[in-house]
C-alpha cells in the first residue's frame, strides 16, 4: 500500500508552520464576554440583573457623591451651598461634618494637645507587633517597621507633639529598626514591655506604678531563681505568689512614695475622655491580647481528662456562649457593684475589657478545641513516646500545630470582637458608631446628619477588619509546611 502511495505524494513539508493564533471568535474581549457573562440564558439573566443592581446603585448615589461639600460650618450651610451650586433640589454629601469633627470620631474627648500620645502608642504597638506578626519574613517586618516609624513621627509632628516626645519616639522607633536588623529576637523584649508603656501613654499619670510592677515581677523571678534548685514546683508557686502579693500590697503605696520623691508624671487622662476609634482599638487590642491565652487555657481545660476541670470549662464556655454580649456588658456596668466588696469602684473601660475578653475567650476556646481535635492522634502519641510531660508536649508539639490549623477561626473571632466593641455604647461609653455620632448630632449645627458619619466610620471598620482577614490568609500561606 505504502509503496503505491509513495508515488502519489507530491508534497512533503520540511519546515514547521509557525503556530497560528486562535480563531478570532476564541479570543479577545468579545469571547471573554460571551464565556463569562452570556454563556446561556441563565447567565445572561444574571448579568442583566447584576447590571441593573449596579445601575440602581450608581444612579442613586453618584449625584450624592458628586455634590460633596467639604467646607461648611453646619448642615444648613452645606445644603445652602449645594442648592446654590447644583440648583434647587439637588442632593449632596456633606463631608464637612467629618472635616469638623474627625478628631472626635478618632479620639473621643481626649485632650486635643495630647493627641500625639495615642498616635505614639499606636505606632509603638506596630513596633511591638511586627516581630510577632511577621516573624517569618525579615523583609515584610522591615517594611512594616520603617513605614510605621515614619508615619508615627510625621503624624506626631503634625499633631503638634513637643520636641522631647518627638525625640523619645524617634529614638525608640529608630532603635527598633536598627535592632530588627541586628538582633531581631531582642525586639520581643519591647513587645513584652509594650502593655505597660502603652497604658502609660494612653492614660498618662505617673510612670512609677509601671516601674513598680516591673520591679515586683523582677522580685518574683528572683524568688523563682533562688528556689528552683530546691524544687521547680515550689519555685514557680513562690515566684507567682511573691509577684501577686507585691501587686496587691506594695505596688500602689510604693509608687506613690516614689512619685513624691522623684516626680515622673505626664498629664493624666481620665477614662471618660476616651471615645471614638481610640476606645474601640484600645478595647479591641486589649481583648485580643488577653483572650488568646485565656482561650488556649480554656480549650486545654475542656479537653482535660480531669472530670472537675473539664466540667467547669464546659459550664463556663457554654454559659458565656449562650448569652448575648450586651447582657455581659450590663453585668459589667450594673452588677459588678453587687459582686465586688462594698466600696470598690474600678474603671469602666477596664470592666468592659474584662467582659469582652471573657466573651471572646469562650469563642476562642471552641475554635482552638477544633484545632486540637483536628490534629492526628499520632502526634499526641509521638509526644508521649518521646517522654515529654504534658506541658512540654503541648508547648512543643501539640499547640503549634493546633493553633496553625485554627488561624482562620481565631482571626474571625478577633474580627467579631473588634466589631462588637461598638456595643459599648449601650453602657454609656462613646463608641465611634453611635456614641460619638449621637453626640455630634446633638449639636444644632449637625442635627440630622446621618450618612456621612456612617460611611466614614464604616469605611474605617472595613479597612481594619478586611486587613485582618487578609493577614490571616497571608499567615495561612506562610505557615503551610506541606505541598510547597
Amino acid at each position, binding site marked *: 500500500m505504502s509503496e503505491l502511495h509513495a508515488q502519489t505524494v507530491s508534497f512533503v513539508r520540511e519546515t514547521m508552520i509557525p503556530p497560528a493564533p486562535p480563531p478570532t471568535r476564541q479570543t479577545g474581549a468579545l469571547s471573554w464576554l460571551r464565556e*463569562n*457573562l452570556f*454563556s446561556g440564558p441563565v*447567565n445572561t439573566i*444574571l*448579568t442583566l*440583573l*447584576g*447590571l441593573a*443592581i*449596579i445601575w440602581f446603585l450608581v444612579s442613586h448615589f453618584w449625584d450624592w457623591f458628586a455634590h460633596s461639600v467639604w467646607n461648611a460650618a453646619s448642615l444648613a450651610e452645606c445644603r445652602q451651598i449645594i442648592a446654590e451650586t447644583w440648583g434647587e433640589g439637588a442632593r449632596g454629601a456633606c463631608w464637612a461634618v467629618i472635616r469638623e469633627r474627625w478628631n472626635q470620631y478618632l479620639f473621643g474627648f481626649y485632650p486635643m494637645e495630647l493627641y500625639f500620645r495615642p498616635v505614639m502608642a499606636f505606632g509603638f504597638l506596630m513596633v511591638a507587633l511586627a516581630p510577632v506578626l511577621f516573624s517569618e519574613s525579615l523583609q515584610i517586618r522591615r517594611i512594616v517597621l520603617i513605614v510605621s516609624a515614619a508615619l508615627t513621627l510625621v503624624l506626631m509632628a503634625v499633631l503638634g507633639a513637643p520636641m522631647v516626645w518627638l525625640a523619645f519616639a524617634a529614638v525608640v522607633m529608630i532603635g527598633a529598626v536598627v535592632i530588627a536588623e541586628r538582633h531581631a529576637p531582642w525586639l520581643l523584649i519591647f513587645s513584652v514591655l509594650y502593655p505597660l508603656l502603652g497604658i502609660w501613654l494612653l492614660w498618662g499619670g505617673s510612670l512609677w506604678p509601671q516601674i513598680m510592677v516591673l520591679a515586683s515581677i523582677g522580685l518574683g523571678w528572683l524568688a523563682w531563681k533562688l528556689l528552683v534548685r530546691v524544687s521547680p*514546683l515550689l519555685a514557680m508557686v513562690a515566684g507567682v505568689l511573691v509577684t501577686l502579693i507585691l501587686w496587691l500590697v506594695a505596688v500602689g503605696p510604693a509608687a506613690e512614695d516614689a512619685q513624691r520623691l522623684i516626680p515622673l508624671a505626664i498629664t493624666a487622662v481620665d477614662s471618660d475622655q476616651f471615645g471614638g476609634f481610640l476606645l474601640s482599638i484600645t478595647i479591641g487590642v486589649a481583648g485580643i491580647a488577653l483572650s488568646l491565652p485565656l482561650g488556649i487555657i480554656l480549650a486545654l481545660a475542656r479537653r482535660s*481528662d*480531669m*472530670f*472537675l*476541670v473539664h466540667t*467547669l470549662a464546659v459550664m463556663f464556655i*457554654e*454559659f458565656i*456562649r*449562650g*448569652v*448575648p*454580649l*450586651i*447582657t455581659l456588658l*450590663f*453585668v459589667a456596668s*450594673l*452588677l459588678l*457593684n*453587687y*459582686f*465586688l*466588696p*462594698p466600696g470598690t469602684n474600678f474603671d469602666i473601660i477596664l470592666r468592659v475589657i474584662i467582659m469582652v475578653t471573657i466573651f471572646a475567650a469562650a469563642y476562642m476556646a471552641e475554635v482552638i478545641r477544633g484545632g486540637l481535635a483536628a490534629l492526628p492522634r499520632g502526634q499526641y502519641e509521638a509526644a508521649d513516646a518521646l517522654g515529654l510531660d504534658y506541658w512540654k508536649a503541648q508547648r512543643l508539639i501539640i499547640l503549634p500545630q493546633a493553633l496553625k490549623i485554627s488561624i482562620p477561626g481565631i482571626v474571625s473571632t478577633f*474580627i467579631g470582637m473588634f*466589631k*462588637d466593641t*461598638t*456595643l459599648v*455604647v*449601650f453602657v454609656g461609653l462613646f463608641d465611634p*458608631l*453611635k456614641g460619638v455620632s449621637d453626640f455630634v448630632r446633638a449639636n444644632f449645627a449637625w442635627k*440630622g446628619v*446621618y*450618612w456621612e458619619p*456612617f460611611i466614614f*466610620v*464604616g469605611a474605617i*471598620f*472595613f479597612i481594619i*477588619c*478586611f486587613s485582618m*482577614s487578609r493577614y490571616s490568609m497571608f499567615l495561612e500561606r506562610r505557615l503551610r509546611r506541606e505541598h510547597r
Partner: protein
Amino acid sequence: MADISAPAATPFRLSMLLYDRRYRSMTIQVFVFILVMAFAWWLVGNTIQNLRVMGKDFDFGFLGQRAGYDIPSPPIPYTSDDTHLRATIVGLLNTVIVSVLGCIAATVLGITVGVARLSNNWLFARLMTIYVEMFRNIPLLLWILIVYAIFTEVLPPPNAYRGEDPAASMILFDNVALTNRYTAIPSLGMTNNPGDLDLGYRILINWAVIAFAVVLIGGWFLRKAVLNHAQKVQDATGDRPVTWWKNLAIMTVPSLLLIWYFGLHLVPPELKGFNFAGGLNVQNGFVALWLALTLYTGAFIAEIVRAGILAVSKGQSEAAFALGLKPNWTMNLVILPQALRVIIPPLISQYLNLTKNSSLAIAVGYMDLRGTLGGTTLNQTGRELEAIVLMMLIYLALSLIISGAMNVYNNRVKLKER
C-alpha cells in the same frame, strides 16, 4: 501463685501527691475545687453584704407587679395594666419572632448568595463577593442603624400617600406601603371566621390556625407513609411507584380546601385619614432589625454554604456521573448530603448568633426581651440583679434549645462511620 513480676508496693508518701501521676490529677482537682468554691463564696458573700448595705433583697416578686408601660403591637394581648411577667413574655415572644423570621430569611439569602458566588457569571459573582465582604467586615450595629435611618429619614410620611396626585406610591401591586413610621402590609381576612380558642391568660388562638396546623402535621405523616409504602413496593418488586403527585396532593389539597372553607384572603392596607388601616402596620424598628439581621447573617451563611459546596471533592461528582446519575440526582444524592454535613455545624452557630444579636433591638426601640425585662422593667423596679440574671438565664435557655434541636438534626445527616 504469687505474682513475682509485680513491683513491690511502695508505701504512700506525701510527695506522691505531686509527683505520682496516679495521685497528681486528684490533687489538682481538689485544689481547683477549693479555689472555685472560695471564689464563689467570696462572690456570694459580697453580694449578700452589698444587698444588705443597699437595703435590697433577692426577690422575684416584682414580676407580679403592675408593669405600667406600653409595648407597641404586642404578639399577645397586653396593656400597661398587666404584670411585669406578662411584659417579659411579650418581650421574649418578640425576640423569638424576629429571630425565627431572621433565620429563615438569612438562610434563603445565604444559600442564594453562596451559590451565586460560585456561578460562572463573572459580574454577578463579583457583586456577591462585594456584598459578602461589605457585610462581614462592618459591625452589625452600623447596618441596623443605617437600615433604620433609611426608614425614618428617607421614606415618606403616611400622608404623602394622600390626595389625587400622591407624592409616594405603594409597591408590590398596591399591597405594601413604606412610610417613615411603619410599614403597612396586607393582613389576612376570613369571610367565615370560626372564632378563637381561649387558652387562658388572655391568649387566644384562632381555630383556623389550629385547623391548618393539624392538616399540615397530618399531611407530613401521610406523606411519610406514602414514601414508606413506595420503598416497600420497591424493595419487593424493584419498581418504585410514582409518588410525586400523591405527595403534592397530600400537601396542598387539604390546605386549599381549608382556604376555600374559611374564605381566606388578603386585606390590603388602605389610607384612612392620616394613617393606613385594614392591613397590618408593622413598626419600623422590627422591619429594620429584621432586614439588618438578615443581610448581616446572610453574608456569613453565604460563606458557609460556599465553603460547604467547595469541600465536596470533585471526584465525588465525577464518580456520580460515571455511575450514570442525572445532574439533579447527583446534586440531591451525592453533593448535597456531603455538603450539608460541613454546612450544618457552623450554620447552627450562625442561628445562635442571630438570636443573640437580636438583642441589638435596643438601637431601634423594638421591645424584645432586653427592651422589656432588661430595659423598662429593670429601670422601673430597680431590680438589676434579678432582672439581668433572669434575662441571662432565658437567653441561655433559648441558645441551648436551638443548639439542642439543631444537633439532633446534625446527628441525622452526620457521616455514619464504622
